């Protein structure tokens, strides 16, 4: 298999570079290991990047990065690949269950690298 960027360096203020933007096919996600935590990182068609918890609270499997990206009533969402609940990429709010919300993390793209900060929960 091809070489992967092993970058996990700190770029100040606990921002962690997880991969190159081009490592993510537009409108799909990948899973990154950030300080021991599994984070699902999505690149949308306009190169905006979102990071949310990779843990699916309904199936309790670490799989949200493998869901289908889309929009519902204008809101960018990810559909869990297991039981298909939708989560807002911006807020982590589950659209089907009002009292379920998952963690959402800030992201930046710098020098072609995707940075995630898991110490600030948006």
């Amino acid at each position, binding site marked *: *298999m*091809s070489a*992967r*960027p*092993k*970058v*996990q360096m700190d770029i100040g203020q606990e921002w962690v570079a*997880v*991969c190159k933007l081009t*490592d*993510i*096919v*537009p*409108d*799909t996600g*990948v*899973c*990154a*290991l950030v300080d021991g935590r*599994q984070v699902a*990182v999505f690149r*949308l*068609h306009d190169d905006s990047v979102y990071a949310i918890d990779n*843990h699916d609270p309904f*199936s*309790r*499997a*670490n*799989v949200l990065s*493998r*869901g*289908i*990206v*889309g*929009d*519902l*009533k*204008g809101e*960018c*969402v990810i*559909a869990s*690949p*297991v039981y*298909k609940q*939708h989560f807002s990429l911006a807020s982590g709010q589950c659209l089907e269950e009002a009292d379920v919300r998952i963690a959402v993390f800030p992201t930046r793209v710098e020098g072609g690298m995707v940075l995630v900060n898991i110490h600030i929960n948006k």
Partner: protein
Amino acid sequence: MIEETNVKNKKIVVIGNGMIGQRFLEQLVSRSETHPIDITVFCAEPRPAYDRVQLTSFFSGKSADELNLVPEGFFEQHGITLRLGDKAVAIDRARKVVRSARGHELPYDKLVLATGSYPFVPKVPGTEWQDCFVYRAIEDLEAIRMAASQARVGTVIGGGLLGLEAAKALHDLGLKTHVVEFAPRLMAVQLDDSGGRLLRHKIEALGVAVHTSKQTREIVKGETCRHKLLFADGSMLETDLIVFSAGIRPRDQLAKAAGLSIGERGGIAVNDHCQTNDADIYALGECALWSGRLYGLVAPGYQMAEVTARHLTGEHDARFPGADMSTKLKLLGVDVASIGDAHGVAPDALNYVFTDEASGIYKKLVVSGDRKRLLGAVLVGEANDYGSLLQLTLNAIPLPEHPEDLILPAREGGASKGLGVDALPDTALICSCNNVSKGGLCSAIAAGATSLGALKKGTKAATSCGGCGPMVKQILDSELKKQGVDVKNYLCEHFAYSRQELFHLTRVGGLKTFDQIITKHGQGRGCDICKPAVASILAACWNEYILKPKHAPLQDTNDYYLANLQKDGTYSIVPRVPGGEILPEKLIVLGEVAKKFGLYTKITGAQRIDLFGARVEQLPLIWKDLVDAGFESGHAYGKALRTVKSCVGSTWCRYGVQDSVTMAINIENRYRGLRSPHKLKMAVSGCTRECAEAQGKDVGIIATEKGWNLYVCGNGGIKPRHADLLAKDLDDRTLVQYIDRFLMFYIRTGDRLQRTATWLENLEGGIDYVRKVVCEDSLGLGAELEADMQKFVDSYECEWKKAINDPETLKRFRHFVNSEEPDRNVVFVAERGQIRPARADEREEREMKAESVV
């Protein structure tokens, strides 16, 4: 004459918090929101009202909480005092007080009796044994379950509705089950002799023994079991536990002691307003006797609850009009229904009877002497027409010229004879449990309840016994069609087209990507509904490799990783085994690969082998080994052709008339990988004994002396459907030609996730139309459909072979983008020598241990 019945500032006492008592409270508070009333409820059971109708589901895992009928905070919110576990023991009508077992005295202005009934236990010596039970409350079921865990044989005394339900429960608890009935047939109230006999055959076929015309004389100590039943005719039956279900009796003792008038055979007599002979005391539900009749069903009780609440809140003309006792049930998996005058007691009634002993179907219509009206009906073995027959009876709709058509099976290709819902008047009562009429449903639909869920929530229709569900759905569909909304056909909010329309637009417009399609014909960015649907359309139109990066974001995870996602985030692998024929060498390879990667192995329900528990990063490694050994993708992950099941056929089987294995292999290799609206399953049997179950498949082929019979649109699964015969005695070439046309026609016109069975049921013209298109080429599309299929066949490649040789594609098979670590959340434990995913509690236990080690 009429009392001042306004409840403002009045004290209301209710005795009994069963299904009807609770419905009464809800009706009352909803009608008196503006003026608070003082309500106290006596509830003898240790818990407030629960769904007794669904009681048996307690055995299949429903908890007492799930059966609960009381909305959260209901009593508090409405200031109702609930005396849980406290029984009313006396009514002093002179002083207008109720005394309870715990010694409370409570004054009332209005008293409501909703005490229900109790199971009748015949006076037989021995019923005091501790293994004798009744079947009425959650506590009874708890006790039965306890006793059953120590028992082998169980007997139900009483072969009526409830008795058979109890028998099913004992059977499901793993007991050898007997049903003992006093009358000469089962369900004596609802069925006639022929219906009862048929039901008996069906129940016996399930392994439940039925003994009719048996009067139990005594219960004594047993020899092979704990007890022995002695019958009046001298015979006997050994059993460990006994459940009495010999009928119910109204619980009227309290009312009787208070001097209220009671019917000859029990029941608290009430008038049309549900008042007893004391105008301040009402009775409703199973304890009430109206017009000489007792009702042992919830629907009439619910109506009484509403009438009482209305009358109490000042609607002096609220009257109970009497109720219908029609019922539809699934007893031990057998559909049984009885409608109206099932025994034909009306003086000039005429019967129409249809019996099919081979399939175990019995249907009887009771019609008026002039053959214009349906008076009643009995259905055993198949009760699909219950809804429409009930409506004909209740609404006195004129019968068609040949009433017998209503029960005769539709001939092959014949049009469906059911009367459509459009023929019903608005007053037609559709849901009798919740008193919802067709008009009520239509206005809810017009007001915006355009999904089944919203309609059920808004009207309560189909939320109790569920018997009216299919009819509610038909009305919804028909109303939506009239509104011209046909919402369900739109793919999703991004496309105002059905899948069929989008397929056409894509093909004709030569569109090759999702972006092109959504820009041209849709809006927004798409979602998990339309993306996979478009992926399937693109695959069927152009057969491009589904893992091309431009198609990748469209794929459901199964297609994205070419494997089936399991509950813990691992995947399963099903290699293709065409026709189910496999070389010993290949079987060994499957075993070796499973051992090498530690996978769980299982034979699937469709003649192949599934390997479970592979992590994403292992998938390409596993497939490398499989491809090297000559395996191909089995497309178990795709909405695509799955398998072509076969029997050994004429090669080995002494009855086979054609070589079914060779045909199955050829067919599977021809259509492997074909993407369609939903999965496709096929089978080939070597003779009419049908060992490959071809009539349960989307495409089924059965050998004949002269060639092959082609069946289409069968289904197993959620709603099994027997396939329809499309064409007879075909030679090999015509067979394939017809299948090509049939499949391509379905792929072009099917809806998203619509199997061929549902597709056909929604296709105007039905199988006759398909036959015209496929066999007679009525649309002139034949050549085009065949050419499309040939193009697909010629461009087939194994998706996995391609994947393991493409570094770009391989990149996606890893759990972390920035680490080689596996997903630590995936944990297996051993069971019967193989792995299985750890349950949550097992996982937590492990984590705790790991932490304490650190």
